[in-house]
């Protein structure tokens, strides 16, 4: 390239470095996907707002709220499930499961999450509905904005709209805190201004985020803030269903009249009448006729809009429809479309989901009310006693997950004739002892295991501790080691030891 052809770098102020926001006034639409979206909106928001009030009786010593995150007592209750902090792996499992399901959804039908289920979409949808109800549909709102006149009616409308938005946002924050305390009690405290400050702070934070994200930021969240569109672009393939405009059918686009004339004259005419209805209803301002793009959250509203237009024109629907990239190409070559829902990708995701689900289900069903963990003393690893015997010390934590005080038997197994001591607990057997643990509590014990010199064979022997619930017989075992000095200690003469 000769220097003459190289374009000059422009002055900094020649191009806009920041983009003014394109105002979007999505138009109301009716149709299959819109109905589906309304139903999903009602279900998801209904669950979110009312779940804290659902009761679930667990017994006298436990809360009766179905879903409760009890931070002070470090418990998570979910219907029949009670999770302790050390069982956080269940939550990890759930997150893994959620991620895999999201991947599967994406492999089957692109961004269904974005279009129907994402809180940002759901709340924005709700806020748009309020806006439409008060300020009118697309055309009206555009006219009002263009006129820019601030008469009393417009001010009243704005105030009303923002008040309702703020009320929804406030309720959103309010519902959030109800998951962290007994809901009816907290509601009472909140209205009588006796709730803890942190509750009000969280309500304020969530009111602010809901109001600003669903009322003001809207599609900007999807376009500029959310990582999922970027991730999903890397996860999708040519067989995933996406909202698509069918070029083969739509082009060349022309007005309805021209198309009619063209068809009479046996010339090619597309079905798209360039009415821009698909763009008008789009909540992110996308023109789907330009192909799949980052801005499209795949909500299907443009499908409804176009289907309505086609119905009026007496043409078949589905000019915009869920379709695959592969089929778009096939249609271009006048081939039959194929749908491949079952393929390596979806099978692998399904298998993984089933696997993780099965493991979690197993973990859940085989879980009992008894828990035990052991921590071997590290310093010193073992203690040599006056008579040459070797003692190992352990910190053992026993857990009673049941809701009443219960007797347990703690025993040491796997060693021949060990001496077994639990500090502070009277001994009841040679290698076992009985102890009590309070309801829903843990108890930390110092446990000493001693082997006489003559019985020591290895530097490191296996030892286990078993905790048995005397009431229902369920038990838990933890494995550990018994350490002894190096060398053939049992035959060693005590020549030197620098204690």
């Amino acid at each position, binding site marked *: 390239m000769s220097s003459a052809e190289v374009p000059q770098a*422009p002055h900094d102020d020649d191009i806009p470095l920041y983009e003014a926001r394109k105002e979007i006034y999505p138009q109301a639409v009716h149709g299959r996907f819109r109905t589906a979206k309304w139903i999903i909106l009602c279900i998801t928001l209904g669950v979110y707002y009312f779940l804290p009030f659902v009761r679930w009786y667990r017994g006298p010593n436990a809360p009766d709220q179905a879903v409760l995150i009890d931070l002070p007592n470090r418990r998570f209750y979910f219907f029949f499930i009670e999770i302790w902090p050390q069982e956080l792996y269940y939550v990890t499992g759930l997150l893994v499961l959620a991620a895999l399901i999201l991947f599967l959804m994406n492999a089957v039908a692109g961004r269904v999450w974005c279009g129907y289920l994402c809180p940002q979409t759901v709340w924005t949808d709700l806020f748009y509905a309020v806006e439409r109800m008060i300020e009118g549909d697309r055309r009206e709102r555009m006219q009002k904005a263009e006129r820019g006149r601030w008469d009393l009616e417009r001010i009243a409308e704005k105030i009303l709209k923002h008040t309702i938005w703020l009320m929804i946002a406030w309720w959103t924050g309010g519902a959030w805190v109800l998951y962290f305390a007994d809901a009816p009690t907290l509601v009472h405290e909140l209205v009588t201004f006796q709730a803890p400050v942190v509750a009000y702070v969280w309500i304020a934070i969530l009111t602010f985020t809901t109001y600003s994200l669903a009322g003001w930021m809207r599609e900007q969240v999807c376009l500029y803030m959310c990582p999922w569109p970027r991730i999903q672009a890397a996860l999708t393939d040519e067989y995933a269903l996406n909202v698509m405009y069918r070029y083969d059918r739509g082009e060349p686009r022309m007005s309805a009249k021209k198309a009619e004339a063209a068809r009479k004259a046996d010339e090619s005419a597309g079905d798209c009448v360039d009415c821009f209805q698909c763009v008008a209803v789009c909540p992110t301002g996308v023109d789907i006729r330009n192909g799949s793009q980052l801005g499209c959250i795949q909500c299907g509203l443009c499908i409804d809009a176009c289907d309505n237009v086609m119905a009026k024109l007496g043409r078949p629907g589905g000019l915009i429809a869920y379709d695959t990239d592969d089929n778009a190409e096939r249609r271009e070559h006048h081939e039959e479309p194929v749908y491949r829902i079952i393929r390596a990708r979806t099978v692998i995701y399904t298998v993984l989901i089933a696997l993780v689900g099965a493991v979690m289900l197993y973990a859940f069903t085989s879980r009992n009310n008894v828990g035990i963990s052991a921590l071997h003393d590290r310093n010193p690893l073992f203690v040599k006693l006056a008579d040459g015997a070797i003692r190992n010390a352990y910190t053992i934590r026993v857990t009673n997950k049941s809701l009443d005080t219960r007797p347990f038997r703690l025993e040491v197994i796997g060693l021949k004739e060990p001496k077994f001591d639990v500090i502070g607990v009277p001994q009841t057997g040679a290698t076992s002892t009985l102890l009590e643990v309070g309801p829903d509590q843990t108890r930390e014990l110092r446990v000493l295991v001693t082997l006489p010199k003559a019985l020591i064979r290895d530097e490191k022997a296996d030892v286990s501790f078993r905790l048995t619930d005397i009431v229902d017989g369920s038990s838990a075992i933890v494995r550990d080691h018994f350490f002894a000095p190096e060398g053939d200690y049992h035959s060693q003469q005590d020549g030197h030891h620098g*204690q």
Partner: protein
Amino acid sequence: MAAHDTNKVDTVTGMSTTGHEWDGIQELNTPLPRWWLWLFYICIVWGIGYVIAYPAWPLVSSYTKGVLGYASRDQIETDMASLKVQRGDMVAKMESASLADIEKDPKMLEVARALGKAAFGTNCGPCHGQGAQGGPSYPNLNDDQWIWGGSLDQIYQTIQYGIRNENPESRQGPMPAFGKDGIIPKADIPIVAAYVVTLSGRKPEGNVDLAKGQKLFAENCASCHGDAGKGNPEVGAPNLTSNIWLYGGDEKTIIETVTNGRGGVMPVWAGRLEPATIKALAVYVHTLGGGQ
């Protein structure tokens, strides 16, 4: 570089380009939204506010304090104070309870062991080791041999007043320097040391007159260590018949001990630590496993 063309439009995407071009590759103009810029300005304002409100700039010998007067040190102190309040009941209960009662009550025992463990780490660990495992000349507190007695009360006494220090209450009783001070003739020391080796069931190295060794032991050592060498916690004379040696049990070390004597010390803790802490320490040490 020729005339720039900022309104150039990319034919494929229909988007305008920035006019930048490298080897035929053009940069699309995909500007950030304005609000993003505003967030940036808000961050700057926030930053300035933060610098005014909180400690920020280092000065030569101090730093800007910030108008809110925040210091992380204060936070620690508040936390510690609230911890103290939280522990208050239990600590008061421990102060009035006897040591044996503390060990019998599971709840008090748990608190005492936790408190004792923490206090041990800071105060005792430097000599006895973090796990009380000891080392040459510092006893292992996990084992079952006690120079000054291993009962709760004896341990409590030792921690309160220490060993061989100026406090009149402290444990007293040195191991004399038999060799250096000429109490036992130099030539006889290996003989008595060889006899001491036999006390713990071992064979001495050379061929020595054990009968003479026994006689020397009876004359010089038995008054503290006992006729059979079983020791005496009253005067801090260790048991010489066991597997545990504070300074080393080989003949050479025993000769050195007899020649130069021993006199390990331990400081007074009463008055330096709170009464409840000392009690917790006694319980902690006693429950390490070797308590009598």
